[in-house]
């Protein structure tokens, strides 16, 4: 299978990602959607490190990495240069959640406000994985990370996930979407749509990390699906600030998602923390209500 694929994909096999890496799948899928006429700007993080150990690269489109926090600014310059030269390549940022939610906000805000024609894709594995699973602004409530560890007097990360899509929509981005690697066709369609929408577009793709979240490598797609099915992650599209499309589900209890990941283990062992699980259920309920994801049974 691997041999069959090699040489056909724009994101080449043989890179150094962990088996079952969600972000690696995101890279493969998004390049399937962009095709060859694209330039990728990366941020420092897992994907950059596992895909470009000098002198090897997994990228068969032009690719550039500068720093952790400046991809949107580098992309601004590339876009301006291409415009000057009359070239047609599409410019994409492909960056982690740490680079996007936290340290890169200044550059992203500037690039979106200026209205560059770029597509910014955040692969969201909900923590700083490259440096050893530290919390980010994208880490969900109660997840245990190495800087938000669960302990005798803590249940893990004490803040809810930052609403980055809303922040970028508020910049006037014409197209903002969330996606999941567990729904590849949907993700690729959204990438295409973003590329074909003039102006700065944002896609946040849920990309489960088996190493950081603590699940078996073969479970990546299932975990991504469960996030959607429990309302812990909502797939939607926003056009000019309005939600125009939402993936509806028959919702399962959040426990089905939480109990399969070591980052939430402290909610179940050594004893069950019903109050905390209820708080997380309430977050999912709010998501469901806000976006109207519940498929209602006919009375």
């Amino acid at each position: 299978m691997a041999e069959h694929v090699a040489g056909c994909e724009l994101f080449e096999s043989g890179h150094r990602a962990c088996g079952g890496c969600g972000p690696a799948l995101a890279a493969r899928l998004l390049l399937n959607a962009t095709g060859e006429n694209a330039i990728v700007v990366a941020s420092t993080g897992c994907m950059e490190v596992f895909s470009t150990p000098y002198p090897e690269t997994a990228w068969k489109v032009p690719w550039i990495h500068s720093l952790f926090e400046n991809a949107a600014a580098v992309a601004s310059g590339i876009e301006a240069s291409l415009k000057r030269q009359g070239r047609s390549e599409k410019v994409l940022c492909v960056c982690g959640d740490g680079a996007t939610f936290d340290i890169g906000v200044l550059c992203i805000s500037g690039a979106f406000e200026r209205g560059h024609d770029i597509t910014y894709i955040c692969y969201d594995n909900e923590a700083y994985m490259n440096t050893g699973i530290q919390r980010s602004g994208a880490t969900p409530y109660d997840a245990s990370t190495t800087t938000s560890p669960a302990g005798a007097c803590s249940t893990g990360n004490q803040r809810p996930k930052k609403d980055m899509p809303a922040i970028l929509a508020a910049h006037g981005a014409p197209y903002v979407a969330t996606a999941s690697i567990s729904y590849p066709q949907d993700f690729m369609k959204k990438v295409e749509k973003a590329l074909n929408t003039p102006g700065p577009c944002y896609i946040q793709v849920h990309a489960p990390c088996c190493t950081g979240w603590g699940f078996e490598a073969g479970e990546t797609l299932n975990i991504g699906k469960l996030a959607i099915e429990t309302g812990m992650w909502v797939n939607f599209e926003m056009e000019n600030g309005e939600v125009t499309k939402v993936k509806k589900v028959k919702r399962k209890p959040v426990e089905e998602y939480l109990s399969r990941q070591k980052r939430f283990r402290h909610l179940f062992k050594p004893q069950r923390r019903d109050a905390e699980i209820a708080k997380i259920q309430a977050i999912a309920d709010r998501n469901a209500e806000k976006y109207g994801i519940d498929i209602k049974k006919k009375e």
Partner: protein
Amino acid sequence: MLQITEGSHAVAEIAKFCRPQVVAAYPITPQTHIVEALADMVANCELDAEYITVESEFSALSACLGASAAGSRVYSATTSQGLALMFEVCFNVAGMRQPIVMSIVNRSLGAPLSIWNDQQDSISLRDSGWLQFYAEDNQEATDLHMIAYKVAEDHDVLLPAFVCFDGFILSHTYEPVDMPSQEEVDAYLPAFTPYHRLDAKDPISMGMYATPDYYMEFRYELERAMQRSIDVIKRAGAEFAEQFGRDYSALVESYRLDDAEIAFIAMGSICGTVKDAIDEMRDAGKKVGLAKIRTYRPFPTEELTRALAGVSTVAVLDKNISLGSGGAVGTEVKAMLAGSGITVLDYIIALGGRDVRKRDIAAIVDLADKGVGDMFYGLRTEVL
């Protein structure tokens, strides 16, 4: 054409004639007049470039990096706090071998906040892999931009370059400047031909990560490029002399050094004051001269050593301080002349815009005569 112009406007004008395709900059005193002038030129179709009004200096240089990597000649300008904010990007640009030219309108660094001139900002980036040119007057500031692009973009060099000139003292001063025409600049500076660029027709990866098996070789190549740049600077300076009649073929300019006993070493606008003071002291029979450093990076070790042969004492004027060690230039000159028998005395001077007059230069000669140096000169002891 000779014109009376403000330093900032002369620099903006020459930046325009160098035909950058992308300009990204963020306003900061005393650089603002440059970026305002460039914006005017774009607004009036005098400059055919993308002008990116970034939200910070950090993004200014990052955008320049992207544009350069995509194959455009780029321009930026900053100073002080702005340059400090670019610190991380500066190292990155050099490591990625992007020949970006940036004007540095030298200003001190806070705290305490000061908008006035010294050279602490660019000196603090001395290890970043950028060529550093320092201008004595606005003519030199203008000319060095053309030379900087030519040297930076040379495929034997491929290093970014600062063109440094002193804030207010030069940037806000009206002086006569012989401004070349667009045709003359075009004749000197060819169109940008990137060594490689981001291009979907020929995809490459830039800015990859290197394990210990490769990292050191990248740094070694950078250092080699710095060393190679010495000859390229001399050549570019000689070509400039041929076309424009002003000679920048030397990295060090010697002023009345023959038979000098005491030699000053200085960079930037202070050299004008030093030269005038030297003339007066020479008239009074004092054998003093000046070695003006035009390129601080690469450091002109060979030329400087040659220029100083025969002097007994060197007085270095440092408009900066490497806190805990001494002036940055003085420290390097001491290392360079170790074992030569020449006495090197360092003077930290003119920090944060403190004025320097001819009589100060004469006073330093008196101190040097007595062997007194390695000190802050001109302190107001009453406020200590």
